[in-house]
């Protein structure tokens, strides 16, 4: 909540304020034991009214309450200070400055929008504030750290980069599409946006490596409404599968794919399909759509996943969005890093964060090192975070991959002709 500015404060009020400040200053200089009992503050700057972003402050609060109930960090409680950024980079920067200089938070968790995180990154450096994003995907966030590590080392990427997402998708495609369905060709179909540039580049690289030939690469405008000509063109090229990279759009291509009975399966990143409301949004047209994710409400990726989903649903009345899982984990591993560092000193905290080895709700969290092209990016792979490949089946998100956490098999609606092209 913003307090209204009072420009015309009267003299007595000012005097009272001064007295109050003096008193406050006194409490700050009080004996050392008081210091150790002050709460650890974590600022959460997020899109509180957006479907995806609203889970960030909620999940962070849930984690803080759990940690506090278990005794806190070295006897200190965790306090979440929330700011709504209204999906705006400018508002996020103001909130970040306020969090650092007025509210004296010790770390910040922020946003699922890459543009917002990129705007905050230099501020994390200037104000020496450990900052973690639970949902942005741009590779540029960590590429910036590589270029100027000493200044930007305070930034941590708590969600997969577009390149890693493409790699995770390819890993799943290798088992499901090549291994099980013997597919050989694909058309890459992505919306024209910043996040899909590295995604598509990686698709074009990793698909041939697993034995899938890319016969065409289509980038369409995110304001496309009629996908008929696009599906038509793809069908003419007779690929075995359509590899998707869609997030801004989702409902329209899915519904038209079903309505036109395009006989080729869609597989890849379809961010809107990860929302549990997607079935109703498409009136069930999403049946058979395969989409990459790192979490799903019914999949026990780790022993922590389902208890988190249950606690979250019980408290907030709905399942968390994808960045709810990561925000929840982030509070835990920031607390863990503070515990190991024995201090909230930013530089010590960065060192401790870099040594993070924490099993959270989406897998085992470890950050890439200083000398990699993407320092502080999550390590993605079978040993750490492998991701999932889910499919909509009868109104439910069924997980197909990796096999150890799969709870179903690939199943397509009758209009899909697997292998028809061959």
């Amino acid at each position: 909540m913003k307090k209204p500015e009072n420009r015309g404060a009267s003299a007595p009020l000012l005097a009272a304020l001064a007295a109050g400040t003096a008193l406050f200053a006194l409490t700050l200089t009080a004996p050392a034991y008081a210091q150790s009992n002050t709460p650890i503050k974590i600022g959460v700057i997020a899109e509180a009214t957006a479907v995806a972003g609203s889970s960030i402050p909620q999940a962070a609060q849930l984690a803080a309450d759990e940690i506090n109930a278990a005794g806190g960090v070295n006897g200190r409680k965790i306090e979440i200070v929330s700011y709504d950024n209204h999906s705006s980079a400018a508002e996020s920067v103001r909130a970040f400055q306020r969090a650092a200089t007025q509210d004296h938070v010790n770390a910040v968790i922020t946003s699922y929008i890459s543009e917002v995180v990129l705007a905050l990154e230099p501020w994390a450096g200037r104000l020496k504030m450990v900052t973690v994003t639970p949902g942005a995907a741009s590779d540029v966030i960590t590429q910036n750290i590589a270029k100027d590590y000493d200044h930007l080392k305070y930034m941590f990427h708590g969600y997969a980069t577009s390149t890693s997402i493409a790699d995770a998708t390819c890993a799943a495609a290798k088992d499901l599409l090549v291994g099980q369905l013997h597919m050989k060709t694909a058309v890459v179909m992505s919306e024209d946006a910043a996040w899909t540039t590295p995604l598509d580049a990686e698709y074009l690289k990793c698909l041939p490596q697993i034995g899938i030939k890319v016969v065409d690469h289509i980038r369409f405008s995110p304001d496309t409404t009629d996908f008929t000509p696009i599906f038509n063109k793809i069908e003419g090229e007779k690929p075995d599968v359509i590899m998707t990279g869609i997030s801004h759009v989702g409902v329209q291509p899915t519904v038209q794919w079903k309505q036109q009975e395009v006989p080729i399966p869609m597989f890849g990143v379809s961010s809107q399909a990860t929302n549990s409301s997607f079935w109703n949004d498409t009136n069930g047209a999403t049946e058979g759509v395969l989409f990459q994710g790192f979490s799903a409400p019914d999949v026990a990726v780790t022993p922590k996943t389902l208890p988190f989903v249950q606690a979250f649903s019980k408290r907030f009345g709905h399942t968390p969005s994808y960045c709810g899982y990561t925000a929840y984990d982030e509070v835990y591993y920031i607390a863990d890093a503070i515990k190991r560092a024995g201090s909230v000193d930013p530089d010590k905290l960065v060192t401790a964060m870099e040594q993070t080895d924490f099993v959270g709700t989406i897998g085992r969290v470890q950050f890439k090192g200083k000398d990699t092209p993407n320092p502080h990016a999550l390590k993605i792979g079978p040993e750490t975070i492998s991701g999932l490949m889910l499919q909509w089946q009868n109104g439910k998100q069924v997980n197909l991959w990796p096999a150890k956490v799969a709870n179903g098999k690939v199943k397509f609606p009758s209009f899909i002709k697997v292998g028809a092209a061959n």
Partner: protein
Amino acid sequence: MTVFWQILIDGFAISSLYALGATGFALIFGVSGVLNLSHGSLMVAAVVAAWAAGDSLHVGPYTGAAIGVAVGFSLSMLTYFVVVSPLQHTRKIREEEKEIFILTATLLWGIMIQQLIAYFYTDNAKTVAPIVQGVIKIVGVRTPANEIFTAIVCGLAIAILWLLVNRTRAGKAVLAASMNPRGITLLGVELSQVYIAVWAIYGVLVGVAGVLLGMFLGISSYSAGPLTASAFSIVVLGGLGSVPGALIAAYVVGYLETITAYLISPAYRTIPALLLLVAVMYVRPRGLLGRR
């Protein structure tokens, strides 16, 4: 050859939808001189209402569609009584300035509706549960049955409108009002009654067009502006106020867009139609069949 048939069939469905959407828009301008810039928002509201009915009330596709049309109709009447009519009747605004006031008011009204929908139902696209499913092969082209259904309903709605205007007394009054509003008041017809009738017809058309578009392509609150713009350019191309002109223009624009999308790129879909519009403005500013 398949592409030719594909363009012919797809273009027909999308053009029929454009025709239906633009007819009501043209009718209102022809009769009352009002350019209703909340047009796109009303269509989006009809779609979201039909979707929400299915989502939260679990009604069937027919009931859902009916609720969508009812919401389009109600909002159209609300637009007339709350936004347009008070401005038409006020004495505080000079007569010659009223048109621009009404234009601005409908624009703001449209933005209000759009923002409310985005607030409560997000700006993600919504689709209306289709009444008919499956595909039918026409000359080798796999065509969704829903696309054929859309074209048939549009054709029927336009035919009914034509009968209404040309064969009934009330319809003839509407036609007369569009030719000479002052003249028909001299014949003892209450002009405001004609306006209400026109807004009612428009409401049904906008509801039906919205619901069909929601079934055919899906729609988001973000589409409100582009939908108004497309109706507007079709009506300008056809000749402001001319319903037959709007019908012809709808097919010209629909086919031009489809041909571009298939033969050049879907990304350039709307550009040739806009260039045509500019060209028509130079050569024939009153549009194809315009009277004014």
